[in-house]
């Protein structure tokens, strides 16, 4: 049985444009945009940000399903949690498809990247949940919290409430990841170390060169969204409160803010 299937084996419609992230970065650079699709924002940043999240939800759904399939001997409760996550991510994908329509976009308007799927490539279920549930879903907490604040400044309760609904699930996914990373590695410190190292590599990947900071310390820029100009963060922030709710320790969050170190077990 093949584990860790390559990204180009994921089922997608024929017309879907799928790109390695370096090609997307190159296309942005050539247009004078920040390569990382983060800052500064372009005119339709809301569409492309939501599109990236929507693609991430699809890949998160596939990743949880794949983990369920790949480890048939894992504890039954672990399998149940993964199945629940597939269901959650499927709902999130539907929510974001509707949100895309709401902001004047559609799924497929922008290319889909492969970087999230690359984070699923771990042979050990403990490493998978460390990387996906703690690393990626932790990042989702940050991105969603920021999106909620943007929606509040826009005065848009549709986006605010929809994203808040999804964020609540992401918090439970992180907690799930912490629980299983700990339980699956119980009595095996070497295995735990490897799982943490996998999460560290993912945290590092999304640290944007150490350019992330707290909500309080973030700089601000003016951004036009449709007819309204609002002030938003000049970079991707770290959602301390949401991460605390998700079970990250203060120490772990501080390490993220400082631009990195090893993840702690708890």
């Amino acid at each position, binding site marked *: 049985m093949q584990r860790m299937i390559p990204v180009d084996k994921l089922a997608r419609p024929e017309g879907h*444009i799928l790109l390695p992230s370096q090609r997307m970065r190159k296309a942005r650079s050539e247009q004078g945009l920040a390569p990382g699709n983060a800052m500064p924002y372009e005119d339709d940043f809301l*569409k492309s940000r939501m599109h990236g999240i929507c693609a991430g939800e699809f890949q998160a759904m596939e990743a949880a399903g794949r983990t369920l399939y790949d480890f048939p001997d894992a504890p039954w409760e672990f399998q149940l949690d993964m199945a629940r996550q597939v269901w959650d991510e499927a709902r999130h994908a539907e929510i974001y498809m509707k949100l895309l329509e709401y902001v004047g*976009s559609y799924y497929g308007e922008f290319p889909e990247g492969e970087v999230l799927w690359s984070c699923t490539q771990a042979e050990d279920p403990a490493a998978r949940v460390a990387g996906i549930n703690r690393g990626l879903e932790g990042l989702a907490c940050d991105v969603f919290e920021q999106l909620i604040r943007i929606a509040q400044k826009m005065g848009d309760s549709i986006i605010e409430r929809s994203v808040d609904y999804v964020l609540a699930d992401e918090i439970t996914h992180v907690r799930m990841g912490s629980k299983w990373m700990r339980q699956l590695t119980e009595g095996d410190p070497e295995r735990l170390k490897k799982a943490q190292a996998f999460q560290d590599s993912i945290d590092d990947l999304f640290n944007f060169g150490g350019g992330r900071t707290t909500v309080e310390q973030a700089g601000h820029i003016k951004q036009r969204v449709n007819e309204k100009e609002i002030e938003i963060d000049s970079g991707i922030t770290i959602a301390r409160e949401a991460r605390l709710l998700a079970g990250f320790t203060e120490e772990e969050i501080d390490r993220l803010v400082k631009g990195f170190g090893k993840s702690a077990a708890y």
Partner: protein
Amino acid sequence: MPELGEHGNVTGPQPIAQVVEPPGAMFAAAERLLNALIRGDRAGVEAMTAEQAREDMGRIADEIKPGKYDKFALIGRARVSRHYFLKARLTGTDAAPFTIQFRLGEDGGAWTVREALNLTGRRSGWTK
């Protein structure tokens, strides 16, 4: 994604912005490029290709013998800001379909190919 229907006659949230329609000139450029490839018009292809993509586009053009294909269809499209990635399939009576993906960008009114990839036999341009 299929259009979900008329929005004005339903209750609930309505879109707060319009879908960005790709420029007609971009589609016209894509058609010119694909026709030039089908004809084996290397000069025409080269004229529409930025320096950085000439080597890749040259290899693609080498694969397409004149007369082998007689039709094309644009089967995919996505944008990164104002650049468009297009996926096209060339077909001919006695030829296996040929699929290419390329990026078009506009500069000074001219749309040129900035990168190109032969996707024949592959499902995507993703890394493995």
